[in-house]
C-alpha cells in the first residue's frame, strides 16, 4: 500500500541506511543459561553494585 502523500518528497530524518544491530533479545533470552545472563546484566546496572572503574 502506498505511503501517505505527506511523506513523499520530504527530506527524511534518518539520513543514512541503518545497519542491523546485534539481535539483543535473542542474545539474552535463548542459550544455555538465559536466566543467568539476564541476572548478570541486571546486577551490573543495579545502583550500588560498585564495579571498579579504570580510567
Amino acid at each position, binding site marked *: 500500500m502506498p505511503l501517505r502523500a*505527506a511523506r513523499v518528497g520530504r527530506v*527524511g530524518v534518518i539520513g543514512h541506511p541503518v545497519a542491523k544491530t546485534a539481535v*539483543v533479545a535473542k542474545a539474552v533470552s535463548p542459550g544455555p543459561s538465559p536466566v543467568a545472563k539476564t541476572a*548478570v*546484566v541486571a546486577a551490573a546496572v543495579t545502583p550500588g553494585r560498585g*564495579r571498579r572503574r579504570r580510567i
Partner: protein
Amino acid sequence: MTQTPLDELGPVDYVVVEFPAGESNFDGEMAKELLALSDAGTIRVIDILILTKDADGSIEAMELSDIENLGPLQQLEAELAELLAEEDVAHLAAAMDPGSTAGVLIWENLWAAPFASAARRAGGQLIADGRIPIQAILASIQADDNETTQGE
C-alpha cells in the same frame, strides 16, 4: 496533535523491530504495553510504519491505518505526526533481512523532556548520546570476571 514548543521537546528515538518470516506472534501484548507507556506520559508516539521486505529485497511500507481492526491502537493512530518521509523507508529497511516484516516506532521521551529543557536553559549542549548494547555489558562483566579469576 498537541503542539510541543521546541524547547520543551524531549529526545526522540526510534526502533526497528524485525519479525523474521513465520516468527511473528501478535496477541495484543505489544499494543497494550505501548499504550501503557503512552497513557502514563512516559512517551509520546510520533510515528509508526510497518515495513515488509520481500525475498527479492523489494520493500513495501504500510501505514498503521492500513491495518484492519487496529483495536486500542486506533487512539494512537489518530495522534501520529507522520515524521518519517518516503526516503526514510529505504534507510530503515536496509537493516531488514529479506522475507521479514518490521515495525518502525518513533517516539518522544516525555520523561526526559523536563531534564533536557533544564540542561538547555543551563547552557548545556548535547554532544553525545547512544545506547549501550546488552552484549557490551555482558562482555565487560565477562572481562572483569576473567581478570579476577586470573589474578587469583
